[in-house]
């Protein structure tokens, strides 16, 4: 890897219309969490900043609006339309490259429920910043996969020319430009989900996946009455608890917490989370008693 490489930010493409799914793919639930949130948390473990790419019409959508956003730039939308090309992913990628010209983008689609830490690690470490992009070769047809790839700043001009030529397919772009292709070690990571049937199968596979065989390490922070009852403000814990609900039951038993779980909210990695969310090793968990600010 070239040491002069520019930093990499994350971009989740969530501007699609989900027409085949007939439901918003970003809001589909897996393991109790919306896919957009799962993708966001996954990327946030690998890059310093993560943004959600979307169309202007989607900016008030609640699944998306609470994240840092990069809205499709009107210039690029108009440029694509004038050339007779669809907008789509290329407009999202160009908008990100224009918003931060000195940054490379780890771009992922938000319909990849099996996307893994291993896959992101592989594309980031295998990246060649001297080319326009680094992508995986599809396990299905051997062609480049544009929507789990690192796009370098130098791709901006070439993408513009591609689009002004009336072309909207990012895969065709990767086939015809100098890019690095990797053989995916995690062969399932790029399986995408487009139809209700594919969603049902993916959800079943993920929701019934075996819980971690070994206890994992979590960081728990305690505040206010829970801090006093636990007698500590923080601890690192080995636990087999699969969800925050399980974890609270375990800790309430240990410390004799007087608050019922129904009175609390929970945060995982410093944002509000569902009680049924699947916990991952290294997660930081905070239980939130009834608040009294102001």
């Amino acid at each position: 890897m070239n040491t002069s490489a520019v930093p990499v930010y994350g971009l989740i493409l969530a501007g699609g219309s989900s027409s085949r799914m007939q439901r918003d793919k970003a809001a589909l639930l897996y393991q109790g969490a919306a896919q957009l949130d799962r993708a966001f948390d996954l990327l946030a473990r690998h890059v310093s900043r993560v943004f959600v790419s979307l169309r202007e019409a989607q900016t008030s959508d609640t699944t998306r609006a609470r994240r840092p956003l990069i809205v499709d730039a009107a210039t690029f939308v108009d440029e694509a339309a004038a050339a007779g090309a669809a907008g789509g992913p290329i407009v999202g990628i160009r908008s990100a490259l224009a918003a931060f010209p000195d940054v490379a983008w780890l771009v992922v689609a938000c319909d990849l429920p099996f996307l893994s830490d291993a896959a992101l690690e592989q594309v980031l470490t295998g990246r060649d910043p001297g080319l326009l992009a680094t992508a995986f070769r599809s396990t299905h047809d051997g062609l480049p996969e544009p929507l789990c790839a690192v796009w370098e700043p130098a791709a901006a001009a070439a993408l513009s020319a591609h689009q002004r030529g009336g072309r909207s397919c990012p895969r065709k772009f990767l086939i015809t430009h100098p890019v690095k292709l990797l053989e995916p070690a995690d062969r399932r990571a790029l399986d995408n989900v487009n139809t209700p049937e594919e969603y049902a199968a993916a959800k079943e596979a993920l929701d019934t996946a075996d819980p971690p065989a070994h206890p994992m390490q979590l960081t728990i922070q305690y505040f206010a009455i829970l801090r006093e009852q636990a007698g500590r403000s923080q601890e690192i814990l080995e636990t087999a608890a699969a969800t925050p609900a399980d974890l609270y039951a375990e800790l309430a038993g240990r410390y004799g917490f007087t608050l019922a779980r129904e009175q609390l909210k929970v945060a995982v990695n410093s944002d509000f989370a569902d009680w049924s969310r699947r916990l991952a090793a290294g997660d930081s968990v905070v239980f939130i008693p009834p608040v009294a600010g102001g």
Partner: protein
Amino acid sequence: MRFRFTDTSIDTAAARHEVLDAGAGGYVSFEGWVRNHNEGREVTRLEYEAFQALALREGERILAEAFARFPVKHALCIHRTGALDLTDMAVWVGVSAAHRGEAFAACRYIIDEVKHRLPIWKKEHYRGGDSGWVNCEHCAAAPRSADHAAHADHADPAEAR
């Protein structure tokens, strides 16, 4: 940052300066003060504790919502942490806007949401020496208290302190 914490007294003159705007014809501020009584008990002092990583994030969301809902020029909210005495200022909200109506409305929106949503906790110390975490001690026996229901839907127009 349009929402922040301080562990020393809030400098309202400096905060007001931050929302000044030549296009603003109105400015509304709210100060929440430490009061000497609550629910029939005589209060002598308070402690505020916050989960700052989440509170800063949620606080910014609230301010962003206020900007989306009301045509305001500037808005700022500062919350105290640590030990406070009677009459100390616990929270300050300031809003400037072209007209007074939206400044009042946005200021009210911000303080109401801050009270309901931010992970901030208040420990009251009472005359007699005992103490308690507000909203956490008495409802323990009744998980579905009215207070909790208000938290869930934010419907309760929170009383200013």
